[in-house]
């Protein structure tokens, strides 16, 4: 199973195995990773599963849809490498993905 690493704002690292086909958000929720709220449950309508994608991985992810970029306007401290983790679907290609979680989701 692909391994995904979540790093918190205070540098705590959690690496967990996430099944192919689940989202990076679901991987966090199932493994009790803190700082990902996912209030809307994956509907791209709340921006509380916001993560910063490690620069080495940024180009390997599928492009954002317009709706995701619009939602990121609402996120807490959005940056160039901001993504909604509910829109990143885990696959073998993403084995080793590293994301940083923000200090707050809102």
């Amino acid at each position: 199973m692909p391994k995904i690493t979540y790093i918190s704002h205070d540098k705590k690292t959690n690496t967990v195995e996430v099944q192919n086909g689940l989202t990076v958000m679901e991987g966090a929720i199932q493994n009790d990773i803190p700082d990902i709220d996912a209030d809307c449950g994956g509907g791209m309508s709340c921006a509380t599963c916001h993560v910063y994608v490690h620069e080495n991985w940024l180009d390997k992810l599928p492009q954002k849809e317009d709706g995701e970029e619009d939602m990121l306007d609402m996120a807490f401290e959005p940056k160039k490498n901001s993504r909604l983790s509910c829109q990143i679907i885990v696959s073998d290609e993403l084995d080793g993905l590293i994301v940083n979680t923000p200090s707050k989701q809102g």
Partner: protein
Amino acid sequence: MIKTDVLIIGAGPTGLFCAHQLGIIGLSCEIVDNLDKVGGQCIELYPDKPIYDIPAIPECTGEELTDNLIKQIKPFNVDFHLNERVEEIKKKDNRWYVKTNKNKDFDVASIVIAGGVGSFEPRKFPLKDCERFEGKSLFYSIKDKTIFKDKTISIFGGGDSALDWAIELSETSNVNLIHRREGFSAAESSVQKVKELNKKGNIKLFTEYQIDKIIGDKEIELVKIKHDNGEIKEIKSDYVLGFFGLIMQLGPILEWGLNIDKKRVEVNTENFETNINGIFAIGDICSYPGKLKLILSGFHEGALAARGCFKYAKPDEKLRFEFTTTSKAAQERLGIKK
């Protein structure tokens, strides 16, 4: 003091349908919601977006679903208390006493929490410094626009609220509009209008900038904004407005002694009662093994919770299971004339 059988917290689809189910079995209820309109997430987050998984309705929008639910509960004359948040609950002699932030009191037999993921609150700037000015010269919503006349206003955001206010206030104030990227999520017509006003000099537009610092003693003097490339600009501002949409906060519900698991309230699946007798939780806010955050699940949960409320409202009566198709009592309650 308002006396009724059940107080529903949350006017989203789940709360509305629960009111229907209460009405059918002859219980009265009132609904409190922190938003200024009925419909919950359906109205606030996706009024125009389609929903495809409401049983027997192949496609409808959040707004249509809400309108139909309001129509469906019309016979029960349910009172809504909008723009209000439940703050405190107290139990006395098998009744619950509930107080809202507008000091309204309710005396009820049971409470149904249908609060989604909490009440909607404006999203705020990430800077701690902003709190000092909040409500004085920094706002997340506008109540009195006359205070901005002839002043310099810095508006942050790229959605409809930010652009609509930028356009409107530019008629009487100096407006700076600051947004984190080139693109906007607001309606295309507003985006065009803002670009025109920017060309004419009526609105100063700063894209790919975000707030960096806010400077001032009692009142805001200037805001520093930072470009994606690190460049910092200082802009003089009398007022700062932030429009970043709404976020849901559980708020006072956390203090009521309910068992909470990851921002959700634990319930049993027999009648969706919580660990506290007489308090039920339904819809997105409840948690149980296998929970799906679907509107249709909320309807089911509301139907069972309504029956669970019966024994608290009418302890000496027995609730008989009936179909609306054949029940005279239910049809009378629905005001159906034959």
